[in-house]
């Protein structure tokens, strides 16, 4: 199609383009201002861990540290006084083992619900999913007494048992939705060739579900790592305490020890989730998307 270029109002187009450009520069500055506001607490955290207690109280809170030497002292004191090594080991154990078991059990249940011919298919699912409906407050008192009676209070096994159970329902929802979208042709073909349901599950369904399983594993691991409440109720001992509980105790009982050291402890406790987020951001965002649906 041919058209006469002189019919175009080039000045108007240029004006519009310029306005657009100016608008986006303004927007960029607004965005930077907003991000700065959001980042100030992080900056405060990042510089505080490089200050000695004396320097922290002497200098303005946003002033750059005089050197990086006090960092090592802060870390060792936070680590030792807060017993963070033990707590990190505990949380790593609860998080990896608990979330793995929970996701695996959820995958098994989702397989039965989507692939096997059973009555009340939806009823079984609702029974498992009911575990997400109630607020945590309803579990606290009964679990405390039940654990006391069974001798599970303040034991690693008791903590693991609870963390595994609480992490089962949500992955069951996600994996059920995913598996019901998986094509049935492959597993029907395998069944024709004489594969039993266990073979179908382990050889066909599981390998095809690794993506969503990783995503929900990360979500559940982070949940366990970040949990403070259930550790204070069910495992409030030095040997069984979770990392966030240890941080809480450290902040409460050693508040005289200096903000720089408690802040260092807070950063140490958060490092694993920060590192995981940046390494596996794609999986996290995928996890958010499944959380939404």
């Amino acid at each position, binding site marked *: 199609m041919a058209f006469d270029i002189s019919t175009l109002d080039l000045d108007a187009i240029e004006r519009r383009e310029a306005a657009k450009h100016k608008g986006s520069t303004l927007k960029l500055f607004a965005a930077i201002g907003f991000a700065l506001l959001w980042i100030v607490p992080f900056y405060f955290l990042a510089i505080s861990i490089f200050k000695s207690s004396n320097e922290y109280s002497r200098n303005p809170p*946003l002033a750059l540290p005089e050197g990086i030497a006090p960092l090592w002292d802060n870390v060792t004191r936070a680590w030792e006084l807060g017993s963070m090594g033990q707590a990190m080991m505990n949380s790593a154990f609860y998080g990896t083992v608990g979330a793995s078991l929970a996701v695996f059990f959820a995958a098994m249940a989702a397989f039965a619900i989507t692939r096997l*011919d059973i009555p009340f298919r939806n009823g*079984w699912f609702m029974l498992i999913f009911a575990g997400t409906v109630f607020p945590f407050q309803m579990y606290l008192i009964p679990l405390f007494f039940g654990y006391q009676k069974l001798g599970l209070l303040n034991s690693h096994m008791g903590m693991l048992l609870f963390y595994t159970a609480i992490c089962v329902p949500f992955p069951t929802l996600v994996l059920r939705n995913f598996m019901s979208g998986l094509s049935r042709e492959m597993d029907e073909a395998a069944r024709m060739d004489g594969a039993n349901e266990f073979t179908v599950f382990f050889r066909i369904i599981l390998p095809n579900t690794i993506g969503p399983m990783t995503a929900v594993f990360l979500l559940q691991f982070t949940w366990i790592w970040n949990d403070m409440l259930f550790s204070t109720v069910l495992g409030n001992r030095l040997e069984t305490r979770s990392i*966030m509980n240890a941080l809480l105790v450290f902040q409460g009982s050693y508040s005289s020890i200096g903000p720089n050291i408690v802040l260092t402890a807070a950063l140490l406790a958060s490092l694993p989730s920060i590192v995981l987020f940046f390494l596996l951001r794609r999986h996290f965002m995928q996890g958010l998307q499944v959380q939404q649906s």
Partner: protein
Amino acid sequence: MDRAAKDKALLDRIGIDQIARNARARRRGQLGLALVFMSPALILVVGVLLVPVLFNIWLSFTKWKKFTGFGEYAGFANYERMPGNPFFNEALINTAIWVGASVVFPIALGLGMAMFFRNLRGAETFKNIIFIPRILAPTAVGVLWFYVYAPDGLLNRGLGLVSGRDVDIGWLYSDATVTPAIIATFVWQTAGLVMVLLLLGLAAIPKDPIEAAHIDGANRWQIFRYITLPLLMPTLLMVTILSVLAGFTVFDLLWVMGANYPGQRSLALAVFMYFEAFQKGSWAFGSAVAVIIGLVVLCVTWVQTVLQGRVDRMTR
């Protein structure tokens, strides 16, 4: 022989009853197998989560005695005690404030930022910065902000620098400022998630109606008000419900920043329940408060299901 006739011949040969029996037998066989697959999940959820919930409900109708333990039926006595308890009333009011604030501020901010960052070049970095607080544990966030709000903390010293005078407001120690201060921390932590969820919702909105409206001369506000907002409703509904539940059951931030000091402080219902049960030993009363929290959560979830169904029908 055509298909129908073939099927009929098969039916005549083995009989419809036999086919039904076979199908039933197959189902039973698969049910056993399914139970094997479902049993770990079922046992864990029922044993560790659902049975305790029932036990909690039962406990809330009993009386707790110091040496004999529970067991004595008390009817609604624990529930009737609630309205007369000044700490409970205070907790109730604070929880209402929390629910309102955790809906209004994160969603207003999140929606504003989502609209703002949607078409901005290089917005990825900004989005990540706003989102990062969300990946930290509430406990760690609480510790960080505890020192922001401390009498000699970041906020007071910042205000002192601006005003030129010494400022020593005990943000977390006075009843008037403690709830707004912790709500600000909550907004800092959660607005990023709300923004990301709304951005996902915005990305799913088709471009055609917006372009059509643009050509018809609609201005940006009209497009937002009459096209984007209605199409964003399902996402907004989900985010609202998530926010209501988060605000209603908030605990970690409050415990770290405001409750973890001598004496009782009714910052919200979840804190009140924990304090009554685990620090005062009023187990039966505490479990009744937990039941109230559970009832409200169930109601909110039910409302969500109803509204979700209505929205689904509207958009279909």
